[in-house]
């Protein structure tokens, strides 16, 4: 075990705020007490790793929650005890995570990742509030969350304009047309040999640069953003579908032929199912690209609504809470899209080796 976990013992003798000793503040006593109690409970009698991790995590959770009460009075380096204590708490937390990560199972991996994410948010909150970072630089997570409900109508309008209008339509058109052209190009090898180098070239160039052109052609509304999304998503889908259609093995194709299956039947029954992992790869890449394309296109001109518009104008007016709230909405949207696609992939391609091995 890392010796840093005993730092709470050192922390007790240091001030927990300007002129505040640890024993003068009940929250500090609770925090230090919880950390040390969980450490003692976990180490006095040998426990199985999972139980030890859970005991430690319970102590860390109580200590972290109690420390939040101390943050506003911490005033930066005037509270060395608090920071030493938090370093010790981090070491304790890391030890618990290490114990958790030793086991197998998807649930445990998700738990470790989730706890780590929570810890990062806590660290952000602690540093911002403890050192009094001005909210112009970086607001605390709690401040961002607090700013969201009062502006919910603005956030919803932006979401509808950018995601529901531009991203979804552009994404569907781009992916479907990429898929359709790939099917045609697969039938006509000459076309495929011409399109593939073009697709590789387009994937290399910064395609978001077409945003000002599209705004000029299709106007300020959502149509121009959808057009950027279409162009951005078309080629990844084309390239991935073409690669996927090549993924069927010769022996499988021969089997289909010996069954007397024609082109359409071979495509539907063999080649498209085999192409599914590639299709999902393209869809996942495109889900991120689509959001980026729509938001960046809004930097070049929009009606007075939309996530990219909100970010670029409110940054200039220093209303950073709404900017961060918009970023949170964008982040949740992107992760949800990606996660939904990943779940769908697992459901549809459960037979594929790349999914099976992970179970």
């Amino acid at each position: 075990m890392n010796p840093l976990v005993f730092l709470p013992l050192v922390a007790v003798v240091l001030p927990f705020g300007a002129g505040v000793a640890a024993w003068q503040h009940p929250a500090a006593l609770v925090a230090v007490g919880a950390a040390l109690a969980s450490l003692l409970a976990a180490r006095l009698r040998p426990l199985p790793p999972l139980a030890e991790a859970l005991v430690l995590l319970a102590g860390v959770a109580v200590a972290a929650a109690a420390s939040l009460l101390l943050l506003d009075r911490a005033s930066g380096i005037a509270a060395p005890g608090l920071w030493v204590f938090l370093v010790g708490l981090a070491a304790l937390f890391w030890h618990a995570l290490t114990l958790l990560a030793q086991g197998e199972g998807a649930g445990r991996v998700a738990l470790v990742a989730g706890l780590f994410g929570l810890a990062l948010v806590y660290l952000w909150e602690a540093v911002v509030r403890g050192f009094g970072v001005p909210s112009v630089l970086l607001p605390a997570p709690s401040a961002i969350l607090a700013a969201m409900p009062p502006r919910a109508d603005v956030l919803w309008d932006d979401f509808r304009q950018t995601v529901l209008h531009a991203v979804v339509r552009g994404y569907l058109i781009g992916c479907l047309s990429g898929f359709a052209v790939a099917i045609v190009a697969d039938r006509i090898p000459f076309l495929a040999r011409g399109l593939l180098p073009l697709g590789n070239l387009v994937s290399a160039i910064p395609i978001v640069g077409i945003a000002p052109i599209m705004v000029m052609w299709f106007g300020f509304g959502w149509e121009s953003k959808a057009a950027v999304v279409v162009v951005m998503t078309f080629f990844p889908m084309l390239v991935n579908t073409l690669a996927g259609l090549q993924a069927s093995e010769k022996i499988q194709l021969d089997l289909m032929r010996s069954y007397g299956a024609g082109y359409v039947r071979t495509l539907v029954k063999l080649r498209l199912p085999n192409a599914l992992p590639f299709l999902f790869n393209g869809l996942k890449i495109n889900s991120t690209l689509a959001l980026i394309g729509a938001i960046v296109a809004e930097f070049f001109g929009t009606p007075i609504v939309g996530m990219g518009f909100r970010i670029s104008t409110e940054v200039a007016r220093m209303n950073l809470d709404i900017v961060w709230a918009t970023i949170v909405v964008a982040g949740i949207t992107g992760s949800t899209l990606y996660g939904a696609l990943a779940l769908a992939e697992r459901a549809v391609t459960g037979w594929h080796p790349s999914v099976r091995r992970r179970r």
Partner: protein
Amino acid sequence: MTTSLSQRVLPVAVMAVAVIAVWYGGAVWLNAPQAMEAMARAGKNWSTADLVMQTFAMKRPVLPTPDQVVVEIYHSLTDYPIGHIRNLLYHTGVTSASALVGFVMGVVLGVVLAIGIVHVRTLEASLLPWIIASQTIPILAIAPMIVVILGNLGFTGLLPKAVISMYLCFFPITVGMVKGLRSVDGMAQDLMRTYNASARQVFWMLRLPSAVPYLFTSLKVAIAISLVGAIVGELPTGGQAGLGSRLLSGSYYGQTVQIWSALVMSAVLSVVLIAVVGLAEKLVGRHTGAHP
């Protein structure tokens, strides 16, 4: 699969010709309303040939023709000295400088993260999912924020753009390096163990060399997106210099030829940068005795 040269070149050539033909056709189609208006104002009778000529030679076309773009780039490169604000090479230099600084920072960050993830199991379980999640949120949306935050801290100019490039390009490097460092042959690993090699020796002599091909594949992806990061990073800075600011000022003033030439220039820059990485890959491969 062996294909003769003509089988490979011909489709690409036909496709290139088709793209250019569509481009000129599109120029006629999109510019025609404006051109007709201009000629009607001039008050002369005009034939279809006149109309086509007019659409190819507009001052502010809806879609400029390829030759207009090429001429614009040529003039901008030759009429002004290299450091001049109207020379496109100056803007290309500004953009590629921040893209390259961001690329280097991204490579360092990506490789360090990958080494940590490969060696510390807790780090793999806790950090890797968040690295993936960090890429599903539209990072470019944060670009104006990063510029403002770093500007408040007193960092302006190149660094904020480089940070955006870094954020974009560390991801493929981390993922590729993790794959590469894990791609070690089991036999070779056993051999190292029989030699009683330390973890450090295994890393330098076995893991790192076997990760090099993966690293270069990721580097090619990364350098292209670091350029995207640099260009987008130039948008919120209000257009002083760089290809991104050329795009922005071109869109403000309706200078379509300027937008297109900046776009073509960024495409050329991207292809050149990828080619340089490819060249480095060949050199390193020759040095380490890789099989082609």
